[in-house]
């Protein structure tokens, strides 16, 4: 079944911000800093004097208050334009020109932005040591520092009394997003309101935030998003577009960012580290788990505290243990901000936990699947995050399916001797876990979807305030409504309506679309059918129970009778379906990777990916499979090549797609996919989320596969060839053995010391 948005996208008729902004418009650009931390001013006079420049704005043109770029809420730590640059690329102003050539020349002018650098926190180590404060809003550079689970003393005692213990430490580089559509925003004044073209994943929330910030009605115009992956789960440059348009008398201004800005200064998957300590018995059963997540946030919170929290949640929920404690921190620095990025900390968490459990399995002589089966959460377990009873836990079934269908009996992580030749192969397994709703007991997740009957054309329009960024919510909503109304998809349209009167939905994030928004659509479709039948029954003067829609959707008729009412005779109808849930809808899965490692160069080829997921009731098999195929390749990039390499001054080496290496089509691997047959456990549709689960375990599976190939699991993401070559060299010199701490011998784990040392050097 083709996607409902397929043809418009093929033809280029699906309009993104820069396509949809009404022409003619003024050409806008951001004015940004280059220093990591500076007092900064814009020489507006010199810039405004350049040919073709219409307006230059900076913080002196702004009376609006500070705000949080996280549309869900958070500390108001961001200015529309700052007078203190807090990271290279921080936004200090904006400029509008009559044509691109004039804009380009003004931006190239020296002296337009005057920076006075001050001491900066230029590494995570700087942030943690807090001798330099990255953002005065955050004393000691602490953006967040929280714990959950058992008290630290309880965990320490449980770890100390466990027969065996393993500690590991994994670090992560920040990684830019690489969505194809660079962030852009346009604005114009329309009589009584601002019209805004925004690339946000959360149009309804951003509209409400803009209303509040400007104390004026703002209308978000519908646009497609050229990928989001969490990087557009923000209010970012929309306020700048409004201020710039205001300075241009309300004319339409389009601010486009550059790929360089997207790569060096926008939002990144968080760098940082995760330390795990696990106590277990000789059967490999976990007895106590201690989790410590430290992420570098950059100077602003944005999503960072939530991402660090979700990383810890994911780490905790992947495996059960009677005693679990977690701490998660987001640390302020003066480098590129971290942001939401598909997996929302889950990739880092899964990498740390899955390489950790593999090491324990190997030390005990257990195969990876058996080891995981002994620790995977089951129905009735207490959720380590919120204490709720866990249900619908199907991780064990995913593992069993993997074992039955794909894996030969016996250990799969058998280590090959390095003497065997240049190319080594290995297979790695990783569990994944993600939610299907942004919900908890105290904050239910709620979605509304409207369905409109257009009687004249006998068509249905679905209205949602969710943005379509490729994730497939619109195709899924169309499919759901099509099934419920037995109406061909060619007669269904999906419309974005983020207005105050529109159906409220917080947007696209948290893998919530299929479950929460999808359920609201199903309910809306049912309500529409009921409303149509009721109206027809009135016209036919019969009981509604006797009325049905005829299969070709031209009319409604009395069952077993002759009388009909044409759909065109019905009044226009609009119903709103709502779904609310407090259940996060945890969805487990298992991912498996086969790799070949070139031990001479450290290059890794991914030969195959296997992905088995519990996505509840499968709504659209091919759509879900497509999601996994894409996530597999994005996961390969996260595993092997995507990173921000920081210079000593806090700037980023990678400037664009020539250096920020997202996978090309030569990097792809065959992907085998299976979904569990599942009874409906969540929502109205029974669908669970997949968007994030589909990527979370890929780097971990690749890391474990490399471990199987070379006998050492890489301790840092991404696993670049140079890092791996160094690890192979070290492995040759001193084959790695995992020394588990025995209660009697009390020998410390040494597995990670070397890497930890390297990382601490980086911290310094």
């Amino acid at each position, binding site marked *: 079944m083709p996607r409902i948005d397929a043809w418009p996208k093929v033809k*280029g008729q699906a309009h993104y911000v820069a396509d949809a902004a009404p022409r003619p418009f003024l050409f806008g650009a951001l004015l940004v800093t280059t220093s990591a931390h500076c007092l900064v001013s814009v020489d507006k006079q010199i810039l405004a004097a350049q040919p073709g420049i219409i307006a230059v704005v900076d913080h002196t043109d702004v009376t609006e208050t500070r705000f949080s770029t996280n549309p869900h809420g958070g500390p108001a730590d961001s200015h529309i334009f700052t007078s203190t640059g807090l990271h290279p690329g921080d936004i200090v102003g904006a400029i509008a020109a009559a044509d*691109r050539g004039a804009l380009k020349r003004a931006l190239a002018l020296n002296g337009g932005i005057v920076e006075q650098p001050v001491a900066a926190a230029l590494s995570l180590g700087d942030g943690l040591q807090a001798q330099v404060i990255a953002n005065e809003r955050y004393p000691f550079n602490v953006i967040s520092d929280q714990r959950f689970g058992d008290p630290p003393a309880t965990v320490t005692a449980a770890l100390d009394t466990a027969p065996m213990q393993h500690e590991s430490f994994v670090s992560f580089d920040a990684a830019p997003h690489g969505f194809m559509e660079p962030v852009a925003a346009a604005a114009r004044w329309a009589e009584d309101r601002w019209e805004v073209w925004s690339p946000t994943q959360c149009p309804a929330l951003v509209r409400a935030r803009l209303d509040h910030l400007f104390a004026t009605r703002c209308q978000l115009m519908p646009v497609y998003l050229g990928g*989001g992956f969490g990087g557009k789960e923000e209010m970012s440059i929309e306020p700048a577009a409004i201020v710039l348009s205001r300075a241009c008398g309300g004319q339409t201004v389009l601010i486009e960012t550059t790929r360089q800005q997207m790569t060096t200064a926008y939002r990144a998957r968080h760098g940082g580290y995760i330390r795990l300590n696990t106590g277990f018995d000789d059967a490999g059963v976990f007895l106590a788990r201690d989790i410590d997540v430290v992420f570098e946030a950059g100077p602003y919170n944005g999503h960072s505290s939530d991402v660090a929290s979700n990383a810890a949640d994911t780490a905790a929920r992947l495996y059960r243990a009677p005693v679990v404690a977690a701490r998660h921190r987001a640390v302020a620095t003066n480098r590129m901000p971290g942001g939401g990025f598909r997996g929302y900390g889950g990739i880092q968490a899964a990498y740390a936990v899955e390489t950790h459990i593999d090491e324990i399995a190997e030390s005990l002589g257990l195969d990876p699947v058996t080891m995981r089966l002994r620790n995977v959460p089951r129905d009735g377990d207490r959720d380590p995050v919120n204490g709720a009873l866990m249900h619908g836990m199907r991780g064990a079934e995913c593992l069993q399916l993997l074992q039955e269908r794909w894996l030969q009996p016996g250990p799969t992580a058998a280590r090959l001797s390095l003497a065997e030749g240049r190319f080594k192969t290995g297979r790695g397994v990783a569990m994944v876990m993600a939610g299907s709703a942004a919900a908890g007991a105290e904050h239910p997740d709620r979605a509304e979807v409207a369905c409109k009957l257009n009687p004249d054309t006998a068509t249905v329009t679905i209205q949602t305030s969710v943005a379509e960024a490729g994730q497939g919510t619109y195709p899924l909503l169309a499919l759901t409504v099509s099934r419920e109304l037995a109406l061909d998809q060619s007669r269904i349209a999906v419309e974005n309506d983020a207005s105050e009167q529109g159906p409220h939905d917080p947007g696209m994030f948290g893998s919530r679309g299929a479950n929460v928004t999808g359920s609201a659509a199903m309910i809306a479709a049912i309500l529409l059918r009921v409303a149509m039948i009721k109206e027809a029954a009135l016209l036919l003067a019969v009981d509604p129970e006797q009325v049905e829609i005829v299969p070709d959707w031209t009319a409604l008729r009395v069952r077993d009778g002759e009388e009909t009412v044409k759909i065109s005779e019905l009044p226009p109808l609009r119903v709103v379906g709502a779904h609310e849930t407090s259940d996060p809808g945890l969805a487990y899965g298992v991912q498996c990777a086969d790799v070949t490692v070139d031990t001479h160069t450290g290059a890794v080829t991914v030969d195959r990916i296997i992905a088995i997921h519990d996505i509840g009731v499968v709504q659209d098999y091919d759509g879900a499979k497509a999601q996994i*195929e894409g996530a597999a*390749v994005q996961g390969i990039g996260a595993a092997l090549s995507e990173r921000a390499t920081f210079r000593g001054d806090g700037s980023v080496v990678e400037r664009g797609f020539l250096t920020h290496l997202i996978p090309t089509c030569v990097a792809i691997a065959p992907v085998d996919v299976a979904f569990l047959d599942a009874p409906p456990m969540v929502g109205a549709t029974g669908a669970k989320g997949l968007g994030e689960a589909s990527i979370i375990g890929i780097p971990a599976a690749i890391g474990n596969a490399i471990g199987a190939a070379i006998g050492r699991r890489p301790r840092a993401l991404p696993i670049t060839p140079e890092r791996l070559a160094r690890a192979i060299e070290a492995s040759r010199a001193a084959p790695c053995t995992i020394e588990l701490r025995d209660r009697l011998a009390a020998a410390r784990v040494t597995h990670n010391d070397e890497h930890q040392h390297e990382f601490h050097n980086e911290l310094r």
Partner: protein
Amino acid sequence: MSADAVPATQSVQLTVNGQPHTVEVRYVDDMLVDFLRDELGLVDVKIGCREGACGACAVLVDGVAVTSCLVYLARADGTEIATASYLLEAPLGERIGAAFVENRAMQCGYCTPGMVVCAYGYLAAAPYVDTADRAALADAFRGHLCRCTGYTRILDAVSEVAQNSHGDATD
């Protein structure tokens, strides 16, 4: 003021999607992609990187797929340009479009028109593509980035068109 800041006055004639255009080049570094989008409103040409690395802005220049963000407008004098929306009206383009749709070879869709252009250029130039040679096919698309699909379905779509087009791919 540097030399390139002096507005140029060169007049360029080119054909875009079958229509002749005469355009005054205002700045020597005016790029083809901006002319197509800003002046002609051809927003099926997308901008992803402006460094020739992503392929979103691909158009056919005299039958060859080129990233239009790297082509100076002044250098496009005398050329014939075709964008995705135009190519999709040709029989080969129709088949490519249908194959993309049937294979779900898009998610966010931002790279899709560029991919269509690349597919058209590739298949029109080499109608007898060995569809079994996946590596050769992938090689033709390595200048095009897609962040969503994982590429498999895009290559499947092109391969399918090649398979069904033997003998008439250039029509």
